[in-house]
């Protein structure tokens, strides 16, 4: 199967430089809720740097993150962080920061109280707590609103506060569950920038999202998860490259689609040509995108075709999954 | 050949002003309450007194057969208005009424507050009044089963067991008493429970309040009464106020030596206060300052 190949190849590649020790390791991790499948047989290693966990809603991302932060017990398999088991191993959490998905707080607190109270649980001195809380608030740009009740915060502020509580104690491992959910473009950009900057000094950051560009904006290392299974792990370009050879539809809007279509038909890497009457565009299916896109500009220039648009309608996450599942 | 249109289809019906726009809320409220675990069992338990009283009515018609068990004490088996009054004001029944309120009433508004569901209701052509009526009717349903229904059943069965209308002729007003008292008790608890339920988003907290405030008033009144030796402190207790009015409605001597309309005044005042607060608390959006 294709997926297996992908993983095997990846291992083959990685075996050369195996001195990089994994921070988070899971072995045959499986989880059910009653009879509903949460996660199915996940064995993987996460190394330092930013790793993106990508998958549609309900794919098992949250379950995975909850398992590696010891909030729930696995039915089968084990999780270790730095070689130590996670479930009920609280001392591990001094170096872990977690940003939960749910939008819940101790609503009666102010942002400042929220951070300082949680920092207290790390056994810092009061001076340290205040310094760290101030720093975290500054990073997420909430300093001005720190004395307002969390209840009155907007969605973006709440999201940023959640991120703040996960980084306030300066952890080596940061795990963020859907930190970009419900944010406007400005707020999203702020958090992406924050996460990227925070990577520094060999921190391990795990971020989950259901939006491919969001993850791409942060990291190249991704884990694709779907229906409770890991479909692929590795460099995002590697996965993209793999998709290259897969039949793929490209939509072109231009001045003379029929002439262009004629030209395409002569090439064997073009499998199908279609016209979308409604949108007035040309749909071309190819199994070799490199060749196709190499040819395209040449055709445009040679035939003086005015191009309005080139898009790939199925160049999204779902297409990746559909392909990996083998649809 | 007609081909079904793809995509969004219209609904070719007429939206209308129902005469009871609150009725769906009530039906759903009752359905959801019965779905709660142990509720059926518990509700069955609260019907126990009614069953016992019913058996009493049967025995009252067969006194001869049961004489050997009674050892001459048959007064309490005399089915008369006092018999009814005892049922309607007995402590166990009132305790169970409060427990039923905790079970079925606590979540009526607080759950909607918790899950932001009020805006779903108020985005529809519902008035505040309809919403509250719908929720209150859930309480009416359960409490009338505990009060009105047994009352009517007692009267009917008394006549059936006796085989004549003697009982009805002797106390033609009794049915009115039953209706009046049932409605009063139910109305009061509806207001009381809805008020408590709108106080918080947390069902546990609301449950404690429903239970706590009721019993608190009782204990408080008992303490004051002892100190001041004044019957007027019975007015502090929700329970004794209800018992007081109950006695009057069944044309019995009031258990406490204070004018009954004071009690009525207290009960009405609580209801009005609750209505006022509910009107302010229940709205489509929560306003956070």
């Amino acid at each position: 199967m294709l997926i297996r190949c992908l993983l095997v190849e990846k291992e083959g590649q990685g075996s050369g430089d195996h001195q990089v020790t994994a921070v988070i390791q899971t072995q045959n991790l499986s989880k059910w809720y009653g009879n509903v499948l949460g996660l199915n047989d996940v064995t993987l290693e996460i190394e330092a740097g930013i790793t993106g966990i990508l998958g549609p809603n309900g794919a098992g991302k949250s379950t995975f993150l909850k398992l590696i932060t010891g909030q729930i017990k696995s039915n089968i398999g084990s999780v270790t962080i730095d070689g130590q088991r996670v479930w009920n191993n609280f001392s591990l959490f001094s170096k872990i920061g977690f940003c939960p998905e749910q939008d819940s707080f101790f609503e009666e607190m102010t942002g400042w109280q929220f951070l300082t109270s949680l920092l207290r649980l790390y056994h810092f001195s009061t001076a340290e707590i205040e310094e760290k809380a101030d720093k975290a608030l500054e990073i997420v740009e909430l300093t001005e609103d720190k004395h307002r009740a969390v209840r009155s915060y907007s969605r973006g502020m709440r999201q940023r506060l959640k991120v703040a509580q996960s980084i306030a104690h300066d952890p080596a491992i940061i795990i963020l569950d859907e930190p970009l959910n419900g944010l406007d473009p400005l707020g999203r950009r702020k958090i992406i920038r924050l996460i990227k900057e925070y990577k520094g000094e060999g921190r391990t950051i795990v971020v989950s999202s259901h939006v491919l560009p969001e993850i791409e904006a942060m990291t190249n290392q991704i884990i694709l998860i779907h229906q409770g299974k890991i479909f692929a792990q590795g460099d995002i370009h590697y996965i993209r490259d793999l998709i290259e050879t897969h039949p793929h539809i490209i939509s072109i809007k231009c001045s003379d689609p029929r002439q262009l279509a004629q030209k395409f038909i002569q090439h064997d890497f073009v499998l199908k040509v279609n016209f979308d009457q409604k949108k007035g565009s040309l749909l071309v299916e190819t199994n070799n995108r490199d060749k196709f896109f190499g040819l395209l500009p040449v055709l445009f220039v040679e035939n003086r075709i005015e191009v309005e648009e080139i898009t790939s309608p199925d160049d999204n996450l779902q297409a990746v999954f559909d392909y990996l599942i083998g649809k | 050949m007609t081909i079904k249109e793809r995509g969004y289809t219209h609904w070719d019906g007429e939206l209308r002003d129902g005469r009871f726009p609150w009725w769906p809320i009530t039906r759903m409220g009752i359905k959801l309450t019965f779905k709660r675990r142990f509720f059926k069992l518990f509700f069955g338990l609260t019907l126990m007194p009614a069953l016992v009283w019913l058996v009493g009515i049967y025995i009252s018609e067969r006194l001869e057969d049961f004489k050997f068990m009674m050892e001459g004490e048959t007064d309490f088996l005399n089915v008369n208005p006092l018999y009814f009054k005892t049922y309607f004001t007995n402590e166990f029944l009132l305790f169970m009424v409060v427990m039923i309120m905790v079970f079925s009433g606590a979540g009526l508004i607080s759950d909607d507050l918790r899950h932001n569901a009020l805006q779903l209701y108020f985005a529809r052509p519902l008035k505040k009044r309809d919403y509250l009526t719908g929720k209150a009717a859930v309480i009416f349903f359960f409490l009338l089963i505990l009060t009105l229904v047994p009352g009517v059943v007692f009267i009917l069965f008394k006549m059936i067991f006796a085989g004549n209308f003697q009982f009805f002729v002797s106390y033609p007003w009794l049915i009115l008493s039953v209706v009046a008292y049932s409605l009063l008790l139910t109305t009061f608890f509806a207001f009381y429970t809805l008020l408590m339920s709108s106080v918080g988003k947390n069902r546990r907290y609301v449950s404690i309040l429903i239970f706590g405030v009721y019993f608190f008033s009782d204990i408080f009144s008992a303490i004051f009464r002892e100190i001041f030796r004044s019957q007027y402190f019975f007015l502090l207790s929700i329970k004794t106020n209800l018992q007081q009015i109950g006695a009057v409605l069944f044309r019995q001597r009031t258990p406490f030596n204070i004018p009954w309309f004071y009690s009525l005044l207290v009960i009405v005042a609580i209801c009005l206060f609750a209505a006022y607060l509910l009107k302010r608390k229940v709205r489509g959006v929560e306003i956070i300052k």
Partner: protein
Amino acid sequence: MNPTDTGKFAFFIKSTKDVFSFFFTLTKKSRRTKIFFILSFLPVFMAFVVKFSQIFQLSRDIEGIYIFNNMVIAFYLQFLILILALFYGSSVTSEELEGKTLTYLTTRPVSKSSIIVGKYLAYSVIIVFMVTLGVLFSFLILNLSELRDLSLYRALFRDVAVLALGLMCYTAFFMFIGTILKKSIMFGLIFSFGWENVIQYFPGSTQKFTIVHYLKSLLPSVSRGRFSFLLFRLEPSSTATSIFMLFLIAAVFVVLACVLFTHKEYILKD
């Protein structure tokens, strides 16, 4: 890093202290606490009314300490501490699940036991403080004219101690219930006002299965007079046994709650 047992213990104490201060500061100012504070202060208000009317000769003259012992304590013992313990005890775990804030606690370097113990202590202290303050004020107001009689203070001390013990016990018990049951309130109400109320009057050893039995054993027996509706048919255990049993009950349930909370998995639904 291989902490010794004493090190572990010291760490546990430290974590518990931190959790304690977390919830102490959070809860002492919350709206619910304010409402319960008002509730527990109503006897003070009552004491005011009584004292006022005595001064102006509006009611019979009853000794302050008499009212205090019989009414105030009865109110606190049979009603208020149950309500408080039930709400705060079951809140220890339930509110974290309902509010989905459990995550913030379990992803910190504090053990689950210390979360339970710390929160238990924080809530206990708050409600003990609430009750003590109410009792103290009622006492002072009711005994305004006899404040020089030192023997009264012994009674006050004893009553406060009994109420505090009761709160500790009940809170521990309801906390344990809260960790296993979702519908802890229903159970709690039936336990408090059903079981505790009825079983305590059963003869022989039966009544020893209630917590209130040991609490009442610590209070002086009340003459079967006008107040018999509040306390009767008690066959008291000895003071030492009672105190021992109360501590034992509290400790057992706290430990059980810790064990359960540590090993049970809580899934937060969204």
